[in-house]
Structures are given as C-alpha cells and as structure tokens.
C-alpha cells in the first residue's frame, strides 16, 4: 500500500521531469537544494520508511521483519535516485533488495519460517538499556546533525556531467582502484568463508547406489523398486494402494507421507467398485450412484478389520470374468 503510494509519488516526480532519463538527476539537483517535487517524495517516503523500520522492532515473525526491511531499502533506492545517485539506486535494488535480502529470506526458510520470536525479554535490564541507548543515540545524532555546520549544497550537476555511473566508474577504477581490488578480495574471502562455515564434514562413508543395493540383498529386503500406487484416476490417486496379483492391497505402494498422515484411501472401496465394474454395471450408473457411493463408503470404513479386504470378491470376479491371464499366472 505504502509502496504503491511512494511509487506513485515517484511516478509523479518522474513525469514532471522526464524529457530524458539522463536529464533526471540534473533536473533534480541543478541548484543542490531539493525541489518541491523532491520534498513531496521525501515527505511521502520518510514516514513509510520509519514505520517500516519500526516493523523490525515489533514484528513477531522474522519474515515480516525481512519484508519491512525490503520496503525500507526500496524506498532508499528511490531516495538515492532523487539525490542524483542513479548508479547507487540501481545497485541498492539489485544488491541489497535483490541479493542480500533474498539471502536473508533463504536463510529464514532454512532456519524455519514459523520461528516466531517472542518479544519477552530474557536478559534482565536489556530491554530498557536497549531503549535508552537507542533513544539516546537518536538524541545525540540529532544533536550532532543539528549543531553541525553544512556548506551551501553544491549539487552533483558538475560531478554528473558525463552521467552518474561514468563519474563513479572514473573514481572506482581510478582513484579507488586499489580499494576496489581489496574489496574484491574481501568478497572472495567471504564466499570461501561461507563455504567453510556451512560445510559439513562427512562422518560416515558415502552410501551410493551400489552400497544400498548390496545392503538390500544382504538384508533380504525388497530388491526391485517398490510397486507404484494403484491409479484409479480419482483425485491424485496416490493414496490408493496397488493390488498384488491376488487382489491384496500392497501397503508399501502408498507414499510414506500419506500413510503417516493417515490419508491413505481404503482399498476395500475400490475393490467393491472393481467388483461392480466386473459385474458389467460399469461407469454407466456411476453418475447416478454418487449418492449411493456416499452411502456405501461409510460401511467399508468400519469394515476393513472384520472383512479381509475384498479377497473373496476378487476371487469371484476372477472366476466370473473367466479371464485367461490370471489363470495362466496362477498356473505358473
């Protein structure tokens, strides 16, 4: 909402001075003093930023805090641009908002999004010390800002003569090239450091496919892949166990997660339907028997323990259908 507001303000500001994008900074600070448009932008953005940053202090969930910080940073990017630091504004969005804050979000995801931070203080006195220190700092900073003597703002008109990025590039690759190199080295070091920190040493030998297969043979486990769940084209159907050649449902064919959650479908219901299909009633009255299904679904829920799941009916079906394949299978 507020972001939208500020965007609107910026848009207004932009449209007011948009003959060419390159001319934007110069238009803003030709005299160094902020124009009215800029003032409007500031007075819109500044409260938003303060409120958003307060979210850092009061948000219970870390994600909300992160989002409010992102908002602050985007607002800052606007401010950079209005102040003639076009390059920095873009970098702010790309690096800070795009990279750093995304990194924060990723870590939040790793650590757990739902980690709600209780605001109850555990260190005695820390709360009021924090408040006093923060407010004290604010007062002192205000004092410094208030008492300092500033030069008459010159503006970046001449400095941004050949556009802001070019000017900065001249500085970075000119006067500050050594600092640039050092900072690059720092980045590489930091990346390596992060790798080292997050690297987990392997404490057990690596278990590959071969090792797993050998272990399976050794323990007499299932050698082939587990059977796929039975697919009856009902919703995702992953919850329906497959049936073995004897018509028995294979429990392990249903994904473990569904089994743990108790979302496994009842095989008996499908067995009954199979019976019906085999009995020739097919899908013809499927639509009509929706209510019937509802009715019939209730008993099977109680049934499974008492009635061994659909074995006789399947046997009947096999006998009734007179299909050759099952026979041949049985004969094997």
């Amino acid at each position: 909402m507020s972001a939208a507001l500020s965007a609107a303000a910026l848009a207004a500001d932009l449209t007011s001075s948009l003959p060419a994008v390159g001319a934007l900074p110069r238009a803003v600070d030709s005299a160094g003093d902020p124009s009215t448009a800029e003032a409007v932008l500031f007075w819109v953005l500044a409260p938003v930023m303060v409120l958003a940053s307060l979210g850092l202090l009061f948000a219970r969930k870390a994600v909300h805090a992160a989002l409010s910080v992102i908002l602050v940073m985007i607002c800052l990017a606007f401010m950079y641009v209005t102040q003639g630091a076009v390059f920095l504004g873009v970098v702010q969005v790309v690096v800070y908002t795009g990279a750093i804050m995304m990194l924060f979000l990723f870590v939040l995801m790793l650590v757990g999004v739902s980690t709600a931070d209780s605001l109850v203080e555990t260190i005695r006195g820390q709360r009021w010390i924090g408040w006093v220190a923060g407010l004290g700092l604010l007062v002192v900073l205000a004092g410094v800002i208030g008492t300092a003597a500033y030069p008459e703002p010159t503006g970046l008109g001449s400095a941004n003569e050949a556009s802001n990025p070019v000017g900065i590039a001249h500085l970075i690759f000119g006067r500050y090239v050594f600092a640039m190199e050092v900072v690059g080295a720092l980045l590489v070091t930091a990346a390596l450091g992060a790798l080292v920190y997050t690297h987990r040493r392997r404490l057990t030998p690596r278990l590959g496919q071969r090792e797993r297969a050998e272990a399976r043979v050794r323990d007499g486990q299932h050698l082939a892949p587990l059977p796929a769940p039975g697919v009856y084209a009902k919703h995702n159907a992953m919850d329906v166990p497959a049936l073995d050649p004897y018509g028995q449902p294979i429990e392990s064919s249903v994904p473990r997660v569904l089994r743990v959650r108790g979302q496994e479908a009842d095989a008996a219901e499908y067995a009954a339907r199979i019976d019906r299909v085999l009995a020739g009633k097919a899908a013809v009255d499927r639509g009509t028997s929706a209510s019937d299904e509802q009715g019939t679904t209730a008993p099977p829920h109680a049934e499974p323990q008492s009635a061994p799941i659909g074995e006789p009916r399947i046997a009947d079906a096999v006998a009734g259908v007179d299909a050759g394949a099952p026979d041949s299978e049985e004969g094997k």
Partner: protein
Amino acid sequence: MHSLALAATLPAVSPVVNPAGATASGGVWSFAWLVVALPLASAAVLLLLGRRADRWGHWLGVLASTGAFVVGLLAMLEVLGQAASSRVWDLRLGTWIDAGALHLDAGLRFDPLSLTFVLLVTFVGTLIHVYSVAYMEHDTDRRRFFAYLNLFVAAMLLLVLADSFVLLFVGWEGVGLASYLLIGFWNHNTPYAVAAKKAFVANRVGDVGLLVAMGLMFAHFGALDFGTVLADPAAHASEGTLTAIGLMLLLAACGKSAQFPLQSWLGDAMAGPTPVSALIHAATMVTAGVYLIVRSGAIFEAAPSAQLVVVVVGAITLLFGAIVGCAKDDIKKALAASTMSQIGYMVLAAGLGPVGYAFAIFHLVTHGFFKAGMFLGAGSVMHGMDDQVDMRRFGGLARYMKVTWITFMMGWLAILGIPPFSGFFSKDKIIEAAFIPTDGAQWRAWVFGTVALVGAGITAFYMSRLFFMTFEGERRWTTRKDGSEQHPHESPALMTWPMIVLAVGSVGLGLFLALGNRFTGWLEPVTGHVEHEEPVLPAGVLIALTLTVVVVGLVLAWRRYATATVPVVPPLGTALTRAARVDLYQDAVNDAVLVEPGQHLTRSLVYADHAVVDGGVKGVTHATVGLGALLRRLQTGYVRTYAATMLGGLVVLLVVVLAVQS
C-alpha cells in the same frame, strides 16, 4: 690549624717527603709483583686441586711464602741501595678503573713503610707456615689451612703494597676474608663458627668506615691514589672534611685492629688454630689499622681533632686490653688481650703525629716478633697438654718444655720492656713520645703519658702472671680422659725452630734497629724527619719510671702466681676481676646497645614487611580479585549485552564530545 702552621713553618716535619714515588721498572721491579702473586697462586692451586694436593700442599704453601719473602728481601735490598730521598718506588701494574672522572691505576708502592710490612709479614708468615706444618699435622684439612694462610699472606701484602686506597681496600677485605675463614677453620664447632661470624661482622663495621672515607676522598680530591690524596690534603679539603675522613679511617682501623669500641671480636677470634692467632691476630692483620693510620698520616695531621680521637682510642684500648688480660685464665685469650693492649700503644703512638709514627711501626715490628713467638709458644704448650688452654691447669711446665720455656721467656721479657730486649726500645720510645707535649698542650702529655706508663705496669703484671702460671709454680695438670697422667713433652723441631728464630728476634731486633736510629731513619721517607723534642719529664727519668712500674708489676705477679698456690678453680675475685673476665662487659654492652635494638629493629621491620609491604601487596591483589569478580558479572556472554555496552559507550562519548565542543 696549629698543626698546619707547624707544617708550614717546619718543612722538615712534612710527613710525606715523596708522595709520588719514582716509577719502578727493570731489575728487581720487573718481578716484584711476584711477592703478591706467589702466595695467591699457591692458594688458588691448593684450593682448586683439592684433595689431590693433600700430600704436598703444606710444603707448597711454605714454598710460596718463602718465595714471597725472598722477593720482598730483594726489593728491600734494592731500595736500601738507594739514597734516602729516592726510596719510594711505584710499580704500575696497569689501568684498573677508568670510569668518567675516576681514573685509577693498579699499582704497588714499594717504600720503606710497605717494605717493612712486607718483610714482617713474609718472614713471620714463613716461620708460622713452617710451624703449622707440624702443628696441623693431624688435621685432615691441613691443605685447606695452608691455602687460607697463603691467601691471607697475599691479601696482606696487597694491603700494604697498594698504591691507592681502593687497592688497599681489596687487600683489606681479603685479609678480613682470610681471617674469617681461619677463625672458623674448625667450623663444625658451633662456637667457633659464631666467633668467625662475630669477627666478620665487627670487621664489616670498620669496612664501612673505610668505604665512607674513600667516598669522601673521591668527592673532595677526585682521586683515590696515595700520590694525589696524601700529597697535600689541606689544599683540597676543609679541616672539617679531613676530620670526617680521619674519623672514618679510624673507624676502619678500629674494626681491623680490634680497638675500642670494636674490640670485642679479637678474644673470640682465638677460636682459630694457634698459628692463625700468631700470624693474623697478633703479628700482622690486626696491625693493619696502625698501618692505615700511619699511611694516611697526612690527613690526620691536617685534622688535629681526628688525631686526638686516635690517641684517645689508643689510650682507652691500651688500658682496656691490659685490664682484661689480668683476669683471663685462657692462655690464648690473655695473649689476645695483650695484643689488643699493645696495638693500643701503637695507635696511641700513631695518633701522636710524625713524632710517633716511626715508634708505632717500630713497636709493631718488635711486637710482631715477640707476640708471634709467644703465641707459638702457647701453641706448643697446648700441643703438649692435649689442647688444654686453661692456665690454672698448667704450672711447672718449664722442666718439661725447655725450648718453649726459654723462647717464651724471651718474648715475655721483650713485651715487658726489660732492656736490652726489643720491647724496651720500642715501647719505652712510645711512652716517651706520649710524654712529649703535642702542640704545646701540657695536659695531653701528662694524661697520655701516664696512661702509657700505667699500661706498662699492668702489662708487666699480666704477662708475668701468664708466664708464671704456665711455666712456674707447682703442676696443676688434669688427668686425661682415659685416666692416664698427662705427659707434657717438647714439640717437634719444626715447631721449635720458628719459635727460636722469633725468640732471637725478640731479643735482638729492637737493639739492632734502634742502634743509631736505624729504623726511624729508614722510615723517614714516609714518616718524615722529626726534630727531637723534649718530653715533659727528662728521658732518663721516664726510663727509670717505666722500669720501676714494670718491676712492680712483675714482683706482684711473682708473689701471687709463682710463690703462692694458684687455685685451680678461679676465685670469685673483686668486682673488677669479674668484669675483666667477661671483657669488661663489652659483649653485654654490645648486646644491649647494638644487638638487641638491632634485633628489635629487624623484628619490627619484619613485622612492617608483613603488615605494610605484604599487606599492601596482598591488599592490592585482593582488591584486584574483588574488582575482577565484580567486573566478571558484566561478562554475561550475551552478545546483546556487549552490543548494548558498546552503544552506551558510544552515546556517552558523543555526549561528552558535544558537551566539550559546545
């Protein structure tokens, strides 16, 4: 002041004729340093080789001492061949100290004074070395004993030959060390070790005096060599300074020579083997104080007050030792008291100024002979009497130890001052000199003269007492531990011959040196020529008086100790006797005045150390620990607390900066 005026008007009295001697080189001087080096090397060899030198070590010691004597004799002959005006030779050994303003060469000064000492020390020393070969025959540590003796000889020679106060101090400390080692030679016996320590401590008191004196000299003269300091002291320092230097030198002399008030160690020092007592505590080391005073005569003459103190100290010690000697039953302690008294004579003479220097040294030499002889005789008696030292257990030994008896008698007659034995020529001269009014002050002549005269009488009494109790009267021997009778016997030839030689010296040396004023003439280059002055009484009267008091003392002793029965158990005696037996309460006084306050001081210092210093240190540590315990509470381990601290600090800092700026 008056003395100064005198020195100005009478150049002949100026004591040091040739303060900076001729530079000695070539001839005998090229190896004269051996006089010190030989005994020193021998001591080093004996100490370093250890038991391997046990079989021949004592002979090496004798050889080294003899060698030193030969070198000394050669140097003496060389000097004797010179004219009287050029008998001071400086042998430069090399630069020793070159530190800023202080440049000091190490060098030896061969002049009549030092050569006299060299010959005395090496000659008597060699005799005592020979004596010790037999005396210490049954001691398992004989080699170590000879090493120490040689060390002593070397140090003593360095002391007397030094050409500066600093080098003298080295020798001074060296003889102190040797004395300490030898007194405590049988240090497994606790009282002996205590006696050694006592001597050492008392000597240190004197050494402090010498150190302070050297410091004063350096401050005022900027140099410490005899040539500079003694040339004309009055030109460099005020009379007050010179008095201070003189008193400090006197303190040093008192410590080394067992003069009042530092005399208490000498009696206990008899704990050492008898040859040690003879050499160190009778003939040589204890006379180093006299040497120091005579050597520094120029300073004392410029400080008459200090000179007066010297005389007073000498007079007090003279009487003190004599009185103590009358009451001692231990033969060695009686001799020690006698030594103290005789050195009192020398110091008195040395304090009289140029008029007495030569006689002080003269008496020193003759005393060195007869007292060493008597000590050796006492050692011989002890040797024959199973180390008995109580004279009340002697008696009638003359028949059994003829040589010892006769040699001891020579020494006895010499110390009594019976003509023509050597003591007569030296001691009577001192008494005569004491009667010469100094600076025209009649009272001084009378007082000190009388003291010296009375001292001679007492000396006669106690030495006769000693002699009679030991050699005359009836036998009062104890039985041995196993019950058998004692069989006193003469000592072996190695012990008797040195005694005989010394006895010959006791008899004839005085006459030989006194004839034609040979000795005073020989010393003139150092002590200065003295115009003859008349004592307050004619010399003949003085001699007669002296002989009279001596004879009175002798007869008294004869009546009491030769013809009468000497009680084996000492009688209670008069209060004075009882006081003299305990050295006139000198130990008690020392204990009361110095030792106990010192112990109280150390105790309170220890207490202060515990309470204040340790308490302070421990308090600081406790405070630190407590502070740490408090500060540890700040260390919660919570990052946020640390961050809060940082931020709080930042805020405070900014506030301060702002407050300061605005």
